[in-house]
Structure formats: C-alpha cells, structure tokens
C-alpha cells in the first residue's frame, strides 16, 4: 500500500491524542485550571490535527460531512461519529476542569469511552479489509489500542501505567509483525485463485494491460522501501517502547520525560509507515506483483 503521509500522520497523532483524552477523561492526572488547559490543548492539537490531516487525502474534502451518514455499514463513518462525540463531550468536560475547577466524572468517562471507540473504529477501517491479509487479523485493533493507551499514559505522566502499557504495546507490535508476515500466504489468495487458471499450469503475468503505470499500481503495489523493513522494525520498537521504558525507569525528570514522548512518537510514526509500506493488496497478483 502507498504510505501516504496524511494517513500516517492521522493514525499516529489522532491515536496519541485520543489516548491522552482517555486518561484525562478518567481523571489521570486529576488536574484543573491552567494545568488541565495545557493537557487538553496537547490532546486536542494531536487528535484534531490528525483528523484534519486525514482529510488531505480526500478527493473532495468539501463533501466530508456526508461521511457521517452510513454508520450502519461503514467503519469509516462510525469513526467520524465517534470522533465528533468524543471531542464534543471532552470539550465540555475540559471546560469544567479549566474554567470551573470541577471534574464532571460522568462526562469524562463518556468522553473516554468514545475516545477509545474512535481508536477502535480507526483500526477497524483497516482490519475489515480482506483484500489486505496483513491487516485482516485481530492483532490490528489490539496494536492500535495498546499504542494509544500507552502513548496516552506516557503523555499523561502516569509513569507506572506507562511502563507496563509500553511493554504490552511493544509485545503486541512485535506479534503483529511476525504474524502479519504469514497472513498473505494463509489467506489462500494467489495468482491461481485470482485468474482461476491454476488447473492448467503455473500462471505467470505475461503482459500488463497498459504500458505505463496506473492508479492501482500507485496505490496498492508500493514496493519501494520494503528493503529496509527489518532495520526499520528494530528502530521502531527501540524508539516506541524500549527507550521510553528505560527513560521512565530513571529518576523522574521533565526533560527525560519529554525525550521519552518524542522517541515514542517517532517510533510509532516508523511503525505506521511500515504498516502501510509492507501491506500487500491482493490486486497486485493480477500484475504478478505483491
């Protein structure tokens, strides 16, 4: 899959932003006034910034409001609705914290639930696609949710929770990669099933339908950059989980915490880049590629 920067930025930062909103909604840390404002600002910049970035890959962003209609069948539509509900509820909850010094816990819990649902629905947009076997597995939502909760805990300053959740998220990330590597072969889709010519003999793509490239090849058959996948996985897991955990185990220091957050974000960005770049769409088989 083509790793579009808009989608990588969207999934990374909205995941982190909604992760922080989950913790804030549940009252961790229990802050009010300007401190609460600072936390809320960071969470909203990330969550809303990510959502805005996601509209950059739309052909017609001016029609984006229509995307709230089809929640009965579409995970993308459900995600939009959950995101708006979460942001509105948390804005009211945040106003209570910042301006009235009051923690309306019920609103916070509702906001946290919808923030979690937003991350889950985002992951389901990818998980539902049988055409991309690497994504079409239960570890995809586990991967998105664990990273969101871990990143949120890290930014919310919940040191103990962050250490545990970062280790869990790192383990799930590794499992997602290892299991994901075999998903295409397990899916049973190959050139023989794509062309239904396998009972005659072995099928080879002889000639593509066109001399140049096309939308399908640009969007789905992105092979550039898979070469360094193993190195990037190591870089990603070190930055995402190992380094932040080590920094959190050291005596607490705001600068070290900031480095831990930045390392985590960089690690997740690399993981998301790999998430798209390594994903193989079955349509590539018609072109004899993956």
């Amino acid at each position, binding site marked *: 899959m083509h790793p579009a920067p808009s989608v990588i930025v969207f999934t990374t930062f909205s995941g982190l932003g909604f992760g922080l909103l989950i913790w804030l909604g549940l009252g961790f840390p229990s802050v009010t006034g300007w401190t609460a404002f600072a936390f809320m600002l960071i969470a909203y910049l990330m969550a809303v910034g990510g959502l805005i970035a996601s509209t950059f890959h739309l052909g017609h962003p001016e029609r984006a409001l229509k995307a709230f209609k089809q929640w009965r069948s579409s995970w993308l539509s459900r995600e939009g609705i959950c995101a708006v509900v979460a942001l509105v509820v948390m804005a009211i909850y945040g106003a209570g914290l910042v301006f009235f010094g009051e923690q309306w816990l019920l609103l916070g819990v509702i906001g946290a639930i919808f923030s979690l649902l937003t991350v889950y629905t985002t992951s389901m947009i990818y998980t539902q696609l049988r055409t991309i076997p690497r994504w079409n597995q239960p570890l995809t939502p586990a991967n998105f949710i664990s990273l969101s909760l871990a990143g949120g805990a890290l930014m919310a300053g919940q040191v103990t929770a962050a250490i545990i959740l970062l280790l869990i998220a790192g383990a799930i990330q590794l499992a997602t990669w290892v299991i994901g590597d075999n998903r295409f072969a397990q899916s049973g889709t190959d050139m023989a099933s794509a062309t*239904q010519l396998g009972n005659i003999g072995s099928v080879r793509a002889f000639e593509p339908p066109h001399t140049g490239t096309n939308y399908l090849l640009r969007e789905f058959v992105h092979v550039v950059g898979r070469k360094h996948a193993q190195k990037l996985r190591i870089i990603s897991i070190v930055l995402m989980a190992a380094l932040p955990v080590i920094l959190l185990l050291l005596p607490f220091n705001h600068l070290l915490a900031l480095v831990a957050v930045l390392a985590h974000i960089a690690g997740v960005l690399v993981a998301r880049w790999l998430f798209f770049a390594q994903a193989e769409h079955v349509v590539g088989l018609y072109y004899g590629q993956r």
Partner: protein
Amino acid sequence: MTTLPQSTEKKLGLVIDLDTCVGCHACVISCKGWNTENYGAPLSDQDAYGANPSGTFLNRVHSYEVQPEQGEAQLIHFPKSCLHCEDAPCVTVCPTGASYKRVEDGIVLVNESDCIGCGLCAWACPYGAREMDAEEKVMKKCTLCVDRIYNENLPEVDRVPSCVRTCPAGARHFGDLGDPDSDVSILVAERGGVDLMPEQGTKPVNKYLPPRPKDALPEFDVLAPFLEPVIEEPKGFLGWLDKALEKI
C-alpha cells in the same frame, strides 16, 4: 444506503470467455470511449502523449502465460472489469452512501456527487475494478453501461454494454445471471464458468469461462523425409545471377 440488498430482482452481469478472447483490447477502447462521452465524469488521462502516460480505465485486459506440467505454454488474455459482486465489499465500506448496489438489477454504481474520494472502496475491492480519476477526484467503475442497456433511443442491438457490443471475437456475453434459463446462465453451466478469487467471499456475478483443452499437435508425417526435396538451387536467370555474384 451502503448496506447491501438481501437479494436483487435480477443479477445483470458479464460472462467472459477466456477461450475466445484474442487480446485485441477493443473492449478497453470502446469502454473508455462510451464512458468518457456519456454518463458521469469523463475518464481522464494524464500526460497522454508524454513520457509517463496514465489514465482511468474501467476495463483492462491482462495477458498470462500458463505453463502446464507437460507441453507448450498457453497465452491467455484476461479482460477484467467490475464483477458486480452480490456481497460487494466496496459498497459496505463507503462512508457517504455514494456506492450502492441496485435492488432492481444488481448493478453496483457510484453516485459521483456524493463521493468524497476517500478511496476506501478501491482498497476493499480485490479485483482492482475501481479507479480514482486523477482529474475529477471521484471513484470510477464499470456501470455495466447502465445508460445503454435501458436506452430506448438506441437500436435494440446496441442495448448491451459497449464492451460486449464491440468484441469482435464474441468473447463477452451480457445477461441476467440470476435467471437459470437465460442464455448466459446456460453458457456458464455448459462451460463450467468460475468465480475469480472465490475465497474472498465477494460472490461475483460476472463469470469467467476457462480455456478449453487445446487440440493435440498432429503426428508428424512419417513419410516426409523420403519425399523429393524441394528445389534449393535457383535456375535460369537467378541461377546465373547467383553464380555471378558468388564469383565477385
């Protein structure tokens, strides 16, 4: 609505004969022509006369070489367009309801004025049947020439999809695959028509007729080596010319 209908009154679709297709790409061109000039946004090209031409097509012809365990390899031309699946994953993922499957005939269409160009339907399609138009930024797909098949302004013979009307080899057939007595259903039953990627669970309406077994090559004539050889040396003027040129 992007939820799929429980059932459709008809299942209009194509039957593509891989035994007959000669790979001429006439269906590709006629499809592009009809669908650029008629219903919906035109199918644009980018850098059409430059170094990197690219464009939107609703129908493309692949060619595959199939090597049996024994004997010669076969070249098989393979036209591919939307299969108008009964369980179309492209429809249910659409957030706006722009993609839909018609209850009356099962055709999968895109309402272009509702399409936000998110591309998710193309991600969900295993067949590569949907292409985002780089100019109009909306999703384009085969309409089964919905503006031809019911068009009473056209002579009756033309009320079939453009690709079917054009095919010089008769490799493409159009009809109701939901009716077991229709010509296309009988053809599929007789020739053992198949679904592409059945494991994807899309239940495609379009069927592909597999290539029939090739005739075996005839036994070489055992007496041929004993026949008088065909004259190899030129005679007359050419013979003289040959010798004269040889001497120079």
